[in-house]
Each structure stands twice: as structure tokens, then as C-alpha cells.
């Protein structure tokens, strides 16, 4: 803040260039970019694994990979997407946008920020190198359920260490976000004036700090069970495998909100801009996010209705789960109310945002179906579950991030992206996504189990459709890489406001946003 007086002092030219710049950078924009690039790379790696899965499931019988490798693919696909693509992607947005949105010059702990990022490539390498060990990568599903993970080979150990590192990175990132938001807001930027994206990330950061250590504890127990003679989960030594499920889902349920809440924040930024109206029900939006975060801690056992809980437990977890629909419903209605009688235009970010509202709601409704205990006994571990969580994760979190990239790309690069190609990317993604995952609802209802490389003949048609959709969905994402590359390289010059009178401090900055911003705190009215 000492730079208030010497505003025009040029101290932004002294950073190193080339590779060293990226390794040593403590600039929130550089680190945000690194996170986003890493996220996209992991998205392609995890996507390639999904292609293997869908290729194997294209026909009944075993064709391409053996069942053990298939199990590794489903497991590592999920781990890479959750911990490599979605979570770092959201942290990338946080790094880029939070300081700008609250009028801060940078994140509060820039060196820690650098470290949080640079743990990630090593963690990912560790995870992926598990394929090279005897016995291959982890194959027990991303939930790493004991006792299967007590039995696996060295690949499981590498996965455990990778999870530790990813967890450390997330917690450090979360601490940075909280400290930044608490201490670095520009004068006048009250909590209830913060953009909703900042709010969602503040709450997400607390969720991360609350549950990532619990997950670290769970995998540490796995590790000591495997090598140091403890018996937390092995009944032979007096342990209980169901205990692992409880601990895992105590982490796992907040984890799914960690992935979706920042997406809600992105959507809440995009929809008002292209509706040319302020966000409807800002206060209720903040409260809804807080409510969802609170509820996430008390519903975990709905992931494990079939383990043999007493009736009272099943009933409690069922009703608590239903309760989540209330704050989530508040959010969906507020987005729709924001669009209501707005002066709508449908640029690429808005298309993605509307796509998220519609498709995420479908995923939410199938989630309600899964939350009904007696029905869940039929749906449990079927493709219905796979369809459900791809509707909330892909067409929720991932598509929101895509929308966010198109929305802020002109601010980041100073160029407009190719609107035609952007819209094409949206339509290809949405159409192929639905071709891939909608039939999986039917497969699940008819009883096709998940995580199995083969299936009964009556499931063939829907699997063929799903696989064809998946191949299209995979290829379509290369288009996004091209659009972003093209936009970085050049294109129509973006104005400072980029869009039609958007709200938010980021649009008061020049495009591209300079390397250092808000060294003088902005005046908040």
C-alpha cells in the first residue's frame, strides 16, 4: 500500500523471462494462468482415459483392455478430473479474479501461492507414474475403498502420496484465499458488496480446510494399514471397512460442493452481464451458498445407504439430503429471475451459463432420486449414478469453467476470442454431452452396474450411443484449446469493458489486465 504516492513508478519490468519467470513467479495472474493451463492439461489426460473406458464399453464383451486396466482407467480418470482438472481449475479462477474483484494488488501470500501451484505437477506425476509400477495404478475406484486399497500394489502407495500432496496444495490455496478476502479488500468493499464469485470461493476455502485434512487422515490410515501393522480398516486386526466409507464420505460430500460452489459463483457473474440486470436476490444467494456448505457436512451417508445402516439413520440421511434441494433451488430460481425480462443476448459465456442452469438442474433432480433411500437400493452403483454426477460435475463445474474462460478471456488476453468458434464449441459440447450421458440414466435404471468392463447384451444400443457421444465430446474439447490459443495470439482488440456495461471491478481495468493492478486501492461506492 506504500505505492499510493508513487503510482507511476515502473517496477513491473524486473521479473525474469521464459521458463524461470513461470517457476519463480509470485504474481497472482501468472499463477492463475499456470493453474488454468495445468487444469486443462489434466482435463485432456483424464479425458483420454474416459475415451479408453468408452471404447471398451462400445461393445459387450472384452475387446480392448483387460478388466484390471479398465478399473485403473475408471479410478484414475476420476482422480485426475477431480483433483487435477476441476479443483485446480477453480483455484486458477480464484487466483486470477479474486484480487481483481476485491480491489487488492495481489494474493495475500504470494510465495505460498507459488508453492501451492508447483506442488501440483509433482503430485500429478506421482499419481500417473503409478501406471508404471507392478500391479499398475490404483483400481479400486476414486473412493479408494478399503479393503481393496489395503490389498493393491505399490500404485496405491503412490496414489496415497499424490493425494497427500494435492491436499496440501488445496489447503494452502484455501488459506491464501481466506487471508486475501479477509485482509486485502479495498476500503469500502464490505463483505456484502463482494461479487458472488468471491463469496462462493470464501466458503469453498473453509470447506477445503475442514475436509481435506480428514481425507489426508483417511489415506494415512490406509497407508499405515498397508505397511505399519495398524488395522483401522482390516477386520483381521479388528478394524472395519465400513469405517473407511464413513470417513471418506465425510470428506467426499463437502468435496462435491467444493467443486460446484465456485461454479455457481462464475454463473452468477455471467448471467447478470448478458441479462443486463443486477443479480436477483444477492443476499439470498450468499445465504444459500452458506446453507449448502453447512448441509454438506451432515448428509454424507447418503452415498452408502446400502451398507446396512439402521432404519433411523437411513431416514435421517434421506431427509437431510432432500433439504439441500431448498438452497439449491433458491439459486436456480434466482438465476432464472435474473434473466426474467432481462435484455438477453447469447454470447458464448451466456450460452454456457444457461447450459449449466438447465443441465445442472437435471443432475440435481437425479440426485434427489438417488437421495430417496428405498429407490437408492435400486440405483446404487449403477450407471444412473454415473449419469447423475456427470450432469452435476461436467455440465455443472466444467461447463461453468468453460463459460468463465470465455467470459474473462478478453480481459486476460486483451483480444476477443472467435465468437463463431466459441458458440460452435458450446453446441458441440452440449449436444455430445447429452448424447453421452443421457442414455446412461436408462442404463442405470435397467440395472447396468458401474465400473464393470462388460455388460449384458440388452444394454448394447445405449452403450453404443453413449460411446459415440463420448468420442465427439472428447474431440470437441480440442476446439477449445485452439480457440484459446488463437485468442492469446491475436484477434480483435477487446475494450476495457469487453461486454455491455458489466458489473465488477475487473472491467474498470484495461484489457489485457496489466501485470500489476490496484496498487492504489480503488474507490468503492
Amino acid at each position, binding site marked *: 500500500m506504500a505505492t499510493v504516492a508513487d503510482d507511476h513508478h515502473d517496477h513491473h519490468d524486473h521479473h525474469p523471462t521464459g521458463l524461470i519467470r513461470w517457476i519463480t513467479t509470485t504474481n497472482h495472474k501468472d499463477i492463475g494462468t499456470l493453474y488454468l493451463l495445468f487444469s486443462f492439461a489434466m482435463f485432456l489426460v483424464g479425458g483420454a482415459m474416459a475415451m479408453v473406458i468408452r471404447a471398451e464399453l462400445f461393445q459387450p464383451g472384452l475387446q480392448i483392455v483387460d478388466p484390471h486396466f479398465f478399473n485403473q482407467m475408471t479410478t484414475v480418470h476420476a482422480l485426475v478430473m477431480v483433483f487435477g482438472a476441476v479443483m485446480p481449475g477453480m483455484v486458477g479462477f480464484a487466483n486470477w479474479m479474486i484480487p481483481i474483484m476485491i480491489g487488492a494488488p495481489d494474493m495475500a501470500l504470494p510465495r505460498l501461492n507459488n508453492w501451492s501451484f508447483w506442488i501440483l505437477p509433482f503430485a500429478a506425476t506421482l499419481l500417473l507414474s503409478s501406471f508404471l509400477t507392478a500391479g499398475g495404478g490404483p483400481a479400486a475406484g476414486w473412493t479408494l475403498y478399503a479393503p481393496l486399497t489395503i490389498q493393491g500394489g505399490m500404485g496405491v502407495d503412490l496414489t496415497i502420496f499424490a493425494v497427500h500432496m494435492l491436499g496440501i496444495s488445496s489447503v494452502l490455496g484455501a488459506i491464501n484465499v481466506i487471508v486475501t478476502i479477509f485482509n486485502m479488500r479495498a476500503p469500502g468493499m464490505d463483505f456484502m458488496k463482494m461479487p458472488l464469485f468471491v463469496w462462493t470461493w470464501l466458503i469453498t476455502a473453509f470447506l477445503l480446510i475442514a475436509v481435506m485434512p480428514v481425507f489426508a487422515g483417511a489415506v494415512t490410515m490406509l497407508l499405515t494399514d498397508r505397511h505399519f501393522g495398524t488395522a483401522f480398516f482390516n477386520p*483381521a486386526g479388528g478394524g472395519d471397512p465400513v469405517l473407511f466409507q464413513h470417513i471418506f464420505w465425510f470428506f467426499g460430500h463437502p468435496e462435491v460442493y467444493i467443486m460446484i460452489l465456485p461454479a455457481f459463483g462464475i454463473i452468477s457473474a455471467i448471467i447478470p452481464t448478458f441479462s443486463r440486470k443486477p443479480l436477483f436476490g444477492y443476499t439470498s444467494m450468499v445465504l444459500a451458498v452458506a446453507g449448502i456448505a453447512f448441509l454438506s457436512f451432515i448428509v454424507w451417508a447418503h452415498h452408502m445407504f446400502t451398507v446396512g445402516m439402521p432404519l433411523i439413520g437411513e431416514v435421517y440421511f434421506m431427509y437431510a439430503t432432500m433439504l439441500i434441494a431448498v438452497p439449491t433451488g433458491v439459486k436456480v430460481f434466482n438465476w432464472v429471475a435474473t434473466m426474467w425480462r432481462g435484455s438477453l443476448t447469447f454470447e458464448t459465456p451466456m450460452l454456457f451459463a444457461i447450459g449449466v442452469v438447465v443441465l445442472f438442474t437435471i443432475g440435481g433432480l437425479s440426485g434427489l432420486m438417488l437421495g430417496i433411500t428405498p429407490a437408492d437400493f435400486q440405483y446404487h452403483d449403477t450407471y444412473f449414478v454415473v449419469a447423475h454426477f456427470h450432469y452435476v460435475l461436467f455440465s455443472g463445474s466444467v461447463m461453468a469453467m468453460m463459460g468463465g474462460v470465455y467470459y474473462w478471456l478478453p480481459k486476460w488476453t486483451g483480444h476477443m476470442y472467435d465468437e463463431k468458434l466459441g458458440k460452435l464449441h458450446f453446441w458441440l459440447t452440449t449436444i455430445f454431452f447429452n448424447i453421452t450421458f443421457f442414455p446412461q440414466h436408462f442404463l442405470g435404471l435397467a440395472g447396468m452396474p458401474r465400473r464393470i468392463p462388460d455388460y449384458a447384451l440388452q444394454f448394447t444400443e445405449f452403450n453404443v450411443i453413449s460411446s459415440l457421444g463420448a468420442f465427439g465430446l472428447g474431440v470437441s474439447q480440442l476446439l477449445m484449446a485452439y480457440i484459446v490459443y488463437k485468442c492469446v495470439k491475436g484477434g480483435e482488440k477487446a475494450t476495457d469493458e469487453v461486454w455491455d456495461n458489466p458489473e465488477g471491478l475487473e472491467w474498470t481495468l484495461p484489457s489485457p489486465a496489466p501485470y500489476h493492478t490496484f496498487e492504489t486501492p480503488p474507490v468503492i461506492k
Partner: protein
Amino acid sequence: MNRRLVLRLLALTVVMFGFGYALVPLYDTLCVAFGLNGKTRITDTQTAAADGVDEDRWITVQFTSHTATGLPWEFRPMMNSVRVHPGEVKDAVYFAKNNSSNPIFGRATYSVSPSIAAVHFNKTECFCFTNQLLEGHEAKEMPVRFVVGRDIPKDVKTITLSYSFFNAEQYLSEEDKNKLTASTKRNSAGEG
């Protein structure tokens, strides 16, 4: 200002890591208290049978068994089921035989279903309370003494008691093994 907040958040991280571990005893306590996961009540015979026998009701208790991978034992109940009155002290016997030529330590876990019956199912004596040793090719009868509590809900007519035997070798220290070997030898000498 930053430093204090960072330290607090780091402390929260450590607390939550500890909380993960605290879930382990918490889970065990809750399981026993509410009969979750088919955990039964463990008491002595006097307490369990103190209320007398309810001769108007019959409950069928079924027995099942399972041997985990890595334990070359034959293990089965000597009878498939038994009919008991609530409050009545009853014995059941399982048969176990080591099919390998090496001595092996095993450990049994149990579960009762329906789970609502678990808290009303009292075990007073069971081979599952301790680790068991079978010498090479040794066969043994393993007794269970139980009392179905008189407070068991009226709609429970059938209870299934299930045992799984696991190989416990890796979880026993040499000292534990020697102790167990000595006590097993003493018992069989006494019976002979």
C-alpha cells in the same frame, strides 16, 4: 494481521486432521451404543438372563459362516439354526479345522441382522472375543453362548448371526503369539 489468521487456519487444518482420527473411536462407540453395523451387546450370563425367560415367544436364530481369503481353514456352524425364547441362555457351536500343516492364528468378526436386533442380542461367551490358534490340521469346536434380550421388538422373528474368520498372523506380536500358544496348550491339557 495475515500471520495471525494464517496460524489460526493452519491450526484448524491440524484440528481437522485430528478429527479424522477421532472419527475412529467415535464410530466404534456409536456402533456399540446403537447396534450399528450389527455390533452386539457383550455382557455376562447373569445380567443377560436376569429378567427371566419369556416362554410365550419363539425366535429363530440362524448361523452362517465365512472364511476370508488367506486363511486355509474350514469353518462352519454345527447346526444351521436354533429356536430360543427371549431371555433364555443358549449355546451354539461352530466347527473349525486348519487344513494347512502350519499353526495359524485366526480372528473372527461377527454381525447380527436385522440390525435392529443387534442391540438386543447379548453374547456372554464367544470365540470371537479373542484370537484363536489352530495347530496344523487341528480341528476344534468353538462355542458361543448368547441370550436374546426380552426387550427385543415384537416383529423380530428371525435373527441371523454371521461370523467371518480372518488370518490374524500379521497383527500379532511374537509375545502375543507365545501367550496364546501357552494358554491354548494349557486348556487342551486340562480337558484331556
